[in-house]
């Protein structure tokens, strides 16, 4: 089955709702990379992200009939994952979250560029988790996942001006950390 294949989201959803349970695997393969990245950046932990996304997919499968606009399946999935991440963060305050799930390890085979890149990523990640979950969510959806403000509004349930303000504040906070580090 082709991940990016000819079947549209609406067609895949129709197949699953028609009884073809295995077709849901296509949904998983199509969206898991982005959802995992979003959840990992939100939670600061790859393990927690994998749990959150897997649970979200199962929840999405069980409630697929309630997805009123199958053409916007991606947005619907991000909404489920975002809610799951926020529930997780509500139970575990940000201070308890493991921020450095995989700190860069010096290896003779690593080039200087790769090490510098790993160091920069660690810095950006630390700056990211200092943001409130709402600002972090808005920044990630906008810039990392490439959602439009309209899609972000559908994911978060917030108004577009609120989301724009959060993205602006997140940019300011990140830029300050990056410039202070130089």
């Amino acid at each position, binding site marked *: 089955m082709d991940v990016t294949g000819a079947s549209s989201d609406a067609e895949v959803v129709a197949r699953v709702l028609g009884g073809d*349970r*295995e077709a*849901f*695997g296509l949904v*998983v*393969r199509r969206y*898991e*990379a982005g959802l*995992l*990245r979003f959840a*990992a*950046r939100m939670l600061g932990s*790859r393990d927690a*992200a*994998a749990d959150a*996304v*897997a649970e979200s*997919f*199962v929840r999405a*499968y*069980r409630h697929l009939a309630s997805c009123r606009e199958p053409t916007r399946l991606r947005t619907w999935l991000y909404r489920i994952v975002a809610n799951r991440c926020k529930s997780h963060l509500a139970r575990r305050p940000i201070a308890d979250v493991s921020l450095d799930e995989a700190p860069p390890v010096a290896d003779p085979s690593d080039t200087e560029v790769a090490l510098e*890149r790993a160091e*920069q*990523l660690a810095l*950006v*990640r630390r*700056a*990211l988790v200092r943001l409130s979950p709402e600002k972090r969510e808005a920044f*990630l959806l906008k*810039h*990392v996942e490439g959602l439009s403000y309209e899609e972000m509004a559908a994911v978060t349930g917030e108004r577009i001006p609120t989301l*724009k303000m959060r993205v*602006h*504040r997140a*940019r*300011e*906070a*990140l*830029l*300050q950390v*990056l*410039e202070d580090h130089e």
Partner: protein
Amino acid sequence: MNAIDPRIHQVLDGELAPGALSTELRRSVERLVTAVALLAAPLPLPSLEPRVMALIRRPVPSRARRLLRWLATPRSVTFRVRPVWSLAFAAVVAMLTLVPIGHEGPDIGEHEGIAQFVGRFPGAQSVHVVGSFNDWRPGSIALEDVDQDGLWRATVVLPTGAYEYMFVVDGERWVPDHLAERLVSDEFGRENSIVIVRPARR
């Protein structure tokens, strides 16, 4: 947090071309774009498909079974209490447990002591103790059989000293206490028991 030049936001929102920015502002934009590129790199995580598909292939338990499982699953309950309330609670518990409230026992003077009278009279309707401490007046000090096991008890505070006494069972039968420290014969040829009351305070 310092506000940044609004033109940086305009460029990042696609509302302004980067060429319209000064070199310094363009550098700020580039820093953020680089950070985003780092965050957007795919994570080397194994696919979730096998895990998800295995979960959705499992039959969904019935509502009743889920309720039963929920009820039977141990859960941790977390109370979030401000330390000040914890200390206040500990202080109240300490007061209740360490400081006696009211007087559970009688006031005992310096020259008084506690005398305990115990007698076994199964089937008796009433038992009283009479003696030199109450001028041998029946009915003034009653014993109680709280457990209904035939064992009658009374605890009284008396001035220190030695006293003769007897039990009066059912108001008519005068019986000595054979468990007393001593027994003496009175002028009527009966045996009286002796109790020695020692000062309770030392």
